[in-house]
């Protein structure tokens, strides 16, 4: 692996591996819904769509047409913190892909008819992921309730009225600020020669001028002093329960312990919550969750899908009892070993593909500023003690710092809290 920083501040990291004649490219932009404000929510995500809709010299659709005709495919995603563009292509197409990527970073066009058409696409995506998906709908409301000050309260896809309302000037300002080369990290993994790749990156990206760094996100969420609740009532058969706990940022020194805690709780059929809530008490049909590892302290989610006519309140009581046992008695060495081994297999699984490698490089470079350190992950996992997992559980899984979301079928009654 090798890295270089271009004269304009753009970071480029490459990982040559030659088992297939392809390259995976990630372009990480340090911009997500965290960089939005009321009235323009969803802009970072909308921007991700607009990046495919033409430049000053290339008509809308040309990016995809050229890339596919050279054997490449692409995708992109936006989160609270970042926007990531991904290309997978035969190594022969490297120069063309870098040229295409640089072109849209430097010369994006904002054709008004494309903006309108893309609003429709995003509205469809929102219907798919949120309006007609109860998990997405409930999560959006929980997140909006969990934060009162910090922009993590905005749904990444945006509020519908904002999707309809942002203007050309909003897009242009966002582009100038966040798509500056000094705000980007490019990672490449696969069948490449590092020096040649750096030369190409220089040729196409170095002419793009650096910009003043984006204004920092200074909002700090005040400590949460009591549990918050959100209830959504809908015509459904399946109730849902989500608990979102205030959790540390990605760079927290306890990160490995948090990962292992999540695994102990819900990874696999032997995990605590699956065993207790799904198999033994049958109060859930599925248990899931994730830690939103971002630049700022975010949320740790526990999500339960419940059987028809199960009261979410009853499931919450059982969940709390299971969490209290973990906080009181800690985790056994065998449980911790299980979580550690699952994490190590997961790590190798990601490293087995050029896509996984490009993504890991980006993740470590952008969130941890230590891409070269990614191979230390097994050692970091090995160093975590049962006491540390218990301590992060006690610290994070406190009811007073959580937001509880319940999706209740219309007509069903939720019993009073016990």
């Amino acid at each position, binding site marked *: 692996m090798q890295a270089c920083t271009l004269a304009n501040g753009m970071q480029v990291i490459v990982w040559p591996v030659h088992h297939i004649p392809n390259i995976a490219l990630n372009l990480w932009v340090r911009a997500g819904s965290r960089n939005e404000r009321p009235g323009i929510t969803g802009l970072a995500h909308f921007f991700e769509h607009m990046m495919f809709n033409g430049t000053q010299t290339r008509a809308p659709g040309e990016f995809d047409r050229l890339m596919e005709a050279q054997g490449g495919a692409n995708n992109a995603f936006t989160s609270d913190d970042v926007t990531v563009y991904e290309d997978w292509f035969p190594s022969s197409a490297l120069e063309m892909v870098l040229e295409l990527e640089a072109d849209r970073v430097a010369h994006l066009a904002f054709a008004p008819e494309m903006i309108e058409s893309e609003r*429709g696409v995003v509205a469809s995506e929102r219907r798919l992921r949120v309006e007609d998906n109860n998990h997405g709908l409930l999560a959006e409301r929980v997140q909006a309730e969990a934060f009162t000050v910090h922009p993590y309260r905005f749904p990444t896809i945006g509020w519908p009225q904002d999707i309809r309302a942002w203007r050309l000037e909003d897009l242009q300002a966002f582009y100038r600020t966040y798509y500056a080369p000094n705000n980007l990290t490019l990672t490449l993994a696969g069948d490449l020669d590092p020096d040649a790749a750096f030369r190409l990156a220089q040729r196409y990206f170095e002419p793009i001028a650096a910009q003043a760094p984006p204004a920092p996100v200074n909002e700090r969420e005040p400590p949460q002093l009591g549990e918050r609740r959100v209830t959504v009532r809908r015509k459904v058969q399946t109730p849902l329960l989500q608990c979102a706990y205030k959790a540390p940022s990605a760079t927290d020194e306890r990160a490995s312990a948090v990962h292992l805690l999540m695994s102990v709780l819900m990874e696999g*059929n032997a995990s605590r919550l699956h065993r207790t809530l799904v198999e033994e008490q049958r109060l859930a049909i599925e248990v899931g969750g994730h830690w939103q590892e971002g630049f700022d302290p975010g949320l740790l989610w526990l999500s339960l*899908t419940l059987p028809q006519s199960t009261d979410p309140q009853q499931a919450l009581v059982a969940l709390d009892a299971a969490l209290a046992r973990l906080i009181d008695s800690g985790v056994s060495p065998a449980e911790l070993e299980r979580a550690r081994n699952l994490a190590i297999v997961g790590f190798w699984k990601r490293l087995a593909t050029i896509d996984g490698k490009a993504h890991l490089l980006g993740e470590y470079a952008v969130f941890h500023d230590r891409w070269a350190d990614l191979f230390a992950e097994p050692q970091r996992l090995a160093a975590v003690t049962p006491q540390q997992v218990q301590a992060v559980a006690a610290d994070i899984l406190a009811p007073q710092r959580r937001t509880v979301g319940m999706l209740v079928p219309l007509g069903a009654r939720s019993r009073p809290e016990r």
Partner: protein
Amino acid sequence: MVRVPPHERLVLDNGATLILLPRREVPLIGAQVLLRGGSAADPPARSGVASLVAALLEKGAGARDAYAFAETVEGAGGSFSAVAGPEAIAVRSRFLARDQDLMLELLGATLRAPQLAAEEFEQLRVRQIEFIKAAKDSEPAELLDAYGRALLFAGHPYAQPVHGSERSLAQVTHQDAREYYCAQFGADRLIVVLAGDLDMPRAEAAVRDALASWPRAAVRAALPPARTLAQRRVLLVDAPGAAQSHFWIGAAGVERKYPRRAALDLVNTLFGGRFTSLLNAELRIKSGLSYGARSSFMRGTVAGEFAIRSFVATASTARAIRLAQQALERLHRDGVSEQMLASARAYTLGQYALGLETAADWAGALADLEFFRLGVEDIDDYPARLAEVDPTLAAAVIAETFPRPENSTLVVIGDAERIGAQLAEFGPIMSMRLTDPDFVPGATGDEARP
């Protein structure tokens, strides 16, 4: 150039096939196991049995009960899953290379001595019903195939919902699961592919040890020839209040051994297999109506379906279906040009190696070849086959395999009150409710309503 890597293949005396493929990029090993049968072998009106038997394979084997089994697998950081498909039960497992003996021991126990415990069966059965309800609430698109296939393949095993319906699962018994295992499991049904950072001699010995004495299955796996409807049908599945409609336009397609596969793949890439496809251009790029539209072929031992799938705001339902149908008509009328084929060929070749990158990818690909009794040339010669495709061959394939809209089955899941009238132009409408416990209209006793 993608070529099948060196591997060992042997067939045991009892008919079990074992394939070993070493790949040492990362210290992992994986198994891909196929057992012929699948949901096609479900008893009549008992769809979901194979799916539950597959799920039971993870719920205890040999001396380990469900929890001990999970603890053993996950304790080593491994994974183990078994899922039924239309024609096979697939077991996938992944472990650190150091745990090869353990993985093979668990695999052997799962196949030969699953506990098939009554209590576990009951839990899985009830939970499976709940999963269908949950999908109806939040992911109805996952159920489109079940509705479409039920209509398209009526009377054929492909018509049965692989994971059952709420109604069939209410009737399936533990005895059904036991009988399925006794009749449908056996060495001659078995394909085992092991790939990764393997100790090859030791792996072969362990598999022989575990499986050489396994008897053949009690019955032969067989699938009747496909029977499909070549007529227009429209099914409206009512989801009151839905913000969008999911639609599926399907017809009989081709089998896995279809000889013009390369041409078919290129044409489908152009029609609905990639971002710039004709279909996605109409529904997303040009109109902004939908987040996406795709088409694909399900290719089994006999012909499965060709299907277009997309979703759109309730108010635009008929317009979007019309655009999809017009794209299909244009494909028939205009065919594809040499330039389009060149782009599709470059795309298919450029993405080919990415799907055959890891040991697990190769295990899946070799199991597929073995399952359909195809040779390695199916993979090795694919680029040469792609090179041979010209507009004339493509036109022949279009005529032969892509349906005309008027001979297609249309399924729409959406708000009937708001889209019922819109859909009348597509033909006489059969209706049912999303909450009905079957995937077939009328099976609940309701008459099909015009």
